[in-house]
């Protein structure tokens, strides 16, 4: 997002278009329509493409914006400029109300829920007396500056496209920030993000509001452009069309929204004016082409086009910044850090973890081993608050942590990696790792959009870069996480966990998929972390690795602890041999 000149170039082209000699006014109308649709779709890109929340109801938010200004200007004679904040506020507030319900819908219920309230609001628009029922409201004043009224398509053009550009820049800024990374992590499940302190429900609500405000803005512009509103453009069909635009453009790309609107609006116009008349075939062709397009380019057009972009993205090293404040670490190996006492977890009738007790001291490396399915990962989930123990006590520094949320537990200094890697594949290694430092940053959405977060952001990225260098992946910093080998992805997860500045590090099979020398490097790193005052609890299958590294080993089998001791004891323990060998000889 550091490239400014393509945006400037685009802005210049947009600014010049109305001055093209003899440009048909009709083209400007089209361009205005494209801009209006692009605004709504841009919100959808963030909501659906980036955040993973599919909404069919965006047209309703346009309606809120449009009707708010329509009512205020015609009934109360307010100036359109005064109603702009009102329109945005109404869309935003209703987004909060609808969003509180909507983001709690899970899976397919969410898009279906948006269809439901989208339709319901459409019918509400068309039935309410003070909104003019099906006839809507006419006689809305145009936007004006001084005595100059923006009546023509060419004059409001600048307001619309100025709005598109500003919205795009703000949206891009938001995505390229602490909050943005949290949003981008949403689509890949909540577990990883929440384990680093991201309040996922709040992040979802935030994008929902952002999208709604953009749609409300578009609605406000629309009302003063057409100067009349009626329910039709805010119905289900329109809601579907906006989603369609986002998908056609490329649902994960902000500029895809602009491209998609261009394609769809122009295309519909061409069909309308085509010679075979009366618009009967228009809708058929539209439908058929839609299906074809999805079959050919399900990812949308923007990724296809941007593949031709001749210049590589700059890969600036994060600039130097002051270090983030760090937690005090233990300087001796005394005192219990983590205590698990009689932990139990039932899933229905199955007991996954049964009365397991063990402790991890400060500056200690403890390994949790056992056959697959022995309850090791479940134990991790109990400690990190992903699952709540059915019974038992878990405490950190003597304070009970059972029942706390994952966000609260990571705040207290417990960070983890996952057995099944949970990185965001289409984010760079640097960005993924920076999520680990989420709780060490302060900037919120608004300051990110306005770029007031740069100092904070630089410190987070510098910390992330430092941890990446430390785990030895400096060369891969700007690669997409998904393009790394699985073993390397596990190491990225370690860097991400280190970014949270933990006192206790939980590693779930960190050595899986590593070559021999990489395993040795990992062991060295873990020892070094221990020497700096961190405690490490790890699950691992490679016995060579475990026996050399761990100071103490806890063996689980069938959810029960069957042994605990130093490696030499474990190696000769008859129960352990029996459990691990599995089959009676």
């Amino acid at each position: 997002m550091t490239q400014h000149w393509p945006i400037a170039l685009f802005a210049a082209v947009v600014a010049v278009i109305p001055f093209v000699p003899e440009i048909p006014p009709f083209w400007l109308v089209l361009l205005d329509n494209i801009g209006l649709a692009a605004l709504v779709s841009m919100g959808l890109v963030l909501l659906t493409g980036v955040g993973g929340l599919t909404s069919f109801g965006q047209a309703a938010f346009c309606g809120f914006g449009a009707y708010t200004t329509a009512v205020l200007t015609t009934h109360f004679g307010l100036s359109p400029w005064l109603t702009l904040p009102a329109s945005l506020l109404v869309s935003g507030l209703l987004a909060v109300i609808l969003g509180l319900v909507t983001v709690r819908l899970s899976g397919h219920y969410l898009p279906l829920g948006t269809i439901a309230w989208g339709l319901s609001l459409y019918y509400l628009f068309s039935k309410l007396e003070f909104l003019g029922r099906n006839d809507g409201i006419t006689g809305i004043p145009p936007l004006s500056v001084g005595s100059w009224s923006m009546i023509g398509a060419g004059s409001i053009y600048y307001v619309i496209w100025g709005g598109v550009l500003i919205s795009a820049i703000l949206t891009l800024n938001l995505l390229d920030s602490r909050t943005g990374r949290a949003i981008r992590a949403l689509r890949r499940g909540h577990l990883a993000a929440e384990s680093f302190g991201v309040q996922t429900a709040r992040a979802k609500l935030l994008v929902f509001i952002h999208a709604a405000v953009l749609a409300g803005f578009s609605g406000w512009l629309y009302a003063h452009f057409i100067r009349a509103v009626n329910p039709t453009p805010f119905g289900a069909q329109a809601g579907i069309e906006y989603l369609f635009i986002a998908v056609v453009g490329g649902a994960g790309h902000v500029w895809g929204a602009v491209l998609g609107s261009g394609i769809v609006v122009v295309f519909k116009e061409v069909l309308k004016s085509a010679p075979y008349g009366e618009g009967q075939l228009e809708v058929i062709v539209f439908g058929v082409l839609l299906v074809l397009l999805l079959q050919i380019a399900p990812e949308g057009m923007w990724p296809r086009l941007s593949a031709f972009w001749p210049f590589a993205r700059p890969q600036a090293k994060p600039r130097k910044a002051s270090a983030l404040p760090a937690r005090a670490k233990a300087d001796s190996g005394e005192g219990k850090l983590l205590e698990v006492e009689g932990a139990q977890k039932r899933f229905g009738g199955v007991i996954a973890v049964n009365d397991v007790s063990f402790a991890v001291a400060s500056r200690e490396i403890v390994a949790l081993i056992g056959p697959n399915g022995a309850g090791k990962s479940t134990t991790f989930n109990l400690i990190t608050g992903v699952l709540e123990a059915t019974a038992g006590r878990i405490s950190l520094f003597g304070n009970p942590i059972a029942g706390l949320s994952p966000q609260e537990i990571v705040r207290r200094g417990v960070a983890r990696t996952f057995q099944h890697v949970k990185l965001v594949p289409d984010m760079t290694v640097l960005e993924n790792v920076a999520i680990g430092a989420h709780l060490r940053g302060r900037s919120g959405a608004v300051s990110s959009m306005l770029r007031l977060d740069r100092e904070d952001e630089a410190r987070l990225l510098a910390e992330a870069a430092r941890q990446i260098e430390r785990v030895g992946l400096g060369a891969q910093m700007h690669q997409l996480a998904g393009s790394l080998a699985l073993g390397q992805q596990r190491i990225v997860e370690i860097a991400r966990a280190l970014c949270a500045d933990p006192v206790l590090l939980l590693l779930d099979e960190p050595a899986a998929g590593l070559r021999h020398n990489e395993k040795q490097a990992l062991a060295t790193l873990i020892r070094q972390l221990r020497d700096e005052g961190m405690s490490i609890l790890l699950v691992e299958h490679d016995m060579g690795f475990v026996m050399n590294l761990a100071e103490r080993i806890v063996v689980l089998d069938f959810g029960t602890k069957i042994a605990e001791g130093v490696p030499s004891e474990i190696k000769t323990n008859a129960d352990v041999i029996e459990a691990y060998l599995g089959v009676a000889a």
Partner: protein
Amino acid sequence: MLFLAQDGITNGAIYALLGFGLVLVFAVTRVILIPQGEFITFGAFTYAALSSGTLPRTAQLACALGVIAFCVELVSIRHQLSIRRLVRAALLFVIMPAVIWLVAMIAAKYSRSVPANLAVSLLIVAPIGLYIYRIVYQPMAHASVLVLLIASVGVHLALQGMGLVFFGAEGMRAPPITEVAFSIGPLRVTGQALAVYVIAALLIVGLWLFFGYTLYGKALRATAVNRVGARLVGVRTVLSGQMAFVLAAAIGAISGILIVPMTTIYYDSGFLVGLKGFIAAIVGGLGSYPLTAMAAVAVGLVEAFSSFYASNFKEVIVFTLIVPVLLLRSLAVPEVEEEKD
């Protein structure tokens, strides 16, 4: 009151059928079948045309789609071409619709029997479902639910447009399935309402038998429960998808046939009727048949009562009521993202 309840239940029965079709298609193919509404329209128009002794143009549509599907099939099997595959494709996509066309012509000319017209209508509309699946969804079977959904919108628009081209903007109505009518106390029961109940009940029992007791029915259920598992035992997901679409189209068509004697159907009426079935399916979580049935009747009742007491806000009420239901369902079954051992 009683009258409203009866009205609600009659509509609810139809919504239940539509809901079943949607649940079935979604479970097997992950497609949210927005074009269900068009199958309703096509069913209604076909039946109405046959009843008035004209050749329904859906027969031509079936042929045209069949030929396109044939071409798509040829392209996709070009690397594994064999006589068997070729013959099968020709039978399914060319000869079958041609025969159906012939049957439709004969029926239009000679048939005045309601059951015969009903059967021929189904015969015409059901293959359209198959062809739509072959042309549109089969090539993109691995796409995300969102992309499939948008594709569904495209199909809906295209089919609705074809409806307008083929049938024009005028509405159609067909004679009732039976003229009998009688009264139970204050309640007047029409033969048509009775037909709705009987046919809905028959269909539900039929589906229950099909899914519970036939190998293909079980295979379809298996595909819905676990696609990978189904493929591993050799059930072709493509075949399952085709079956699901044929069933859904047939269900849509029957619903249309049941409605068209009661209300005038326009080229775009199906969509709204389908939407109500859709609500029922949503409330059932796109997965449960009994819940869908209950929800459908509830939708019918809410609609009947609110159209009486607050007719202006009928749709607002119906659609708003879904949101809390969805919320309850979401909270009851929280999304679990398990980190397994």
